[in-house]
């Protein structure tokens, strides 16, 4: 069967024209609606976020007020906790400076005379003094090396030495009066009362 389009060309053109016009208007309308809808969605989300921010701010303020009401000594408690943490570190870094004088007591006091003992931030001990002989000064350095492992209360080879990196940094003068400088690193840790 053969279909014959009997519409005149002018009518066909008008219909195509109408269809194109409808399509153009629909496309423009869709674009405008989609743009406006997208913007509205973004505005709604932004507003919802602002609301959430306000709620969170109020929640924080309420909790702060609750802390002040339920735990009036909160400031003191928090300070105590912070300070106890700090004290733990400070006690842990405590140096046993007195150990040096214990060692000095083991070596003949009359042979060695100490003029200054200083400690730097890295726990490096610097001892300066005079000795009757080079040997006496060396004995002090040797005694420092074995403090807590061979000499001192409860000394044991398994203990950590009180001093490490013991070094006779300088030794000068004559027999009878030798000036010396000893450097060493002092062990740190909590000092227990005994």
């Amino acid at each position: 069967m053969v279909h014959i389009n009997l519409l005149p060309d002018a009518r066909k053109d008008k219909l195509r024209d109408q269809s194109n016009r409808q399509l153009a208007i629909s496309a423009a309308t869709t674009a405008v609606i989609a743009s406006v809808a997208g913007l509205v969605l973004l505005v709604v989300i932004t507003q919802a976020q602002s609301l959430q921010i306000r709620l969170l701010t109020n929640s924080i303020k309420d909790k702060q007020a609750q802390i002040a009401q339920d735990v009036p000594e909160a400031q003191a408690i928090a300070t105590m906790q912070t300070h106890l943490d700090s004290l733990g570190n400070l006690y842990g870094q405590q140096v046993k400076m007195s150990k040096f004088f214990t060692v000095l007591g083991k070596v003949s006091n009359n042979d060695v005379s100490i003029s200054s003992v200083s400690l730097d931030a890295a726990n490096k001990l610097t001892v300066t003094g005079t000795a009757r002989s080079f040997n006496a000064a060396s004995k002090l350095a040797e005694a420092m090396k074995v403090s807590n492992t061979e000499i001192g209360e409860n000394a044991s080879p398994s203990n950590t030495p009180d001093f490490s990196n013991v070094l006779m940094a300088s030794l000068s003068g004559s027999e009878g009066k030798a000036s010396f400088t000893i450097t060493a690193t002092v062990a740190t840790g909590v000092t227990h009362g005994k």
Partner: protein
Amino acid sequence: MANKTTAKKVSKKQEFANNLSTSNLIAVSILISILSIVLAIIIGRMLVSSLMLNARVIGKKTTASKQINTNYDNLKGLQSSYNSLGSLRETASNALPTRPELPLLWAMMENIGNSSGVSTSSVTSVVTSDIDAPAGGTVQQLPITVSVEGSYEAIQTYLKNIELSTRPLRVVNVTLSGTNNSVQANLLITTYYQGPADLNVGSEVVR
């Protein structure tokens, strides 16, 4: 009258649309579409950047909210422990005061000297004011100089007792002079203090 005006307007629009040729109508439609899309992109970009900033603020606020809730729970838990400390509270606060507390410190140095058998001849500090350290700050160092006199053994005991002090005392320098029976020791000691905890809710600029 109003109906007449509306009818007039509609007829004008129709007339305008009808008067436009199809190609012009398509061009106008494309122009309107592009214009609306461009406008939407420009305004949308501003909204998106505001949205992202808000998201970051919400993230920070949520973290802060969780933190303050945890702090509250922790404080409630610590409350009973704190109250049961009794006199130890004073000991702990004297061990690391919130300010230099020089009068207490000098009294403590004298007590340590007396119990060790040395006489304390002077105590000095470079600190000029006795005020609280900043809240939430770190541990502050307080250097002091102490001069004591006594036998060699007494000085030894003094140094040991200094190490046993509840308030941490770090002897950084000792200079000795005199004879075995009367030793003059000048000590440079560092002690510490720390400001109170900072419980205030702070603010932070989110960019």
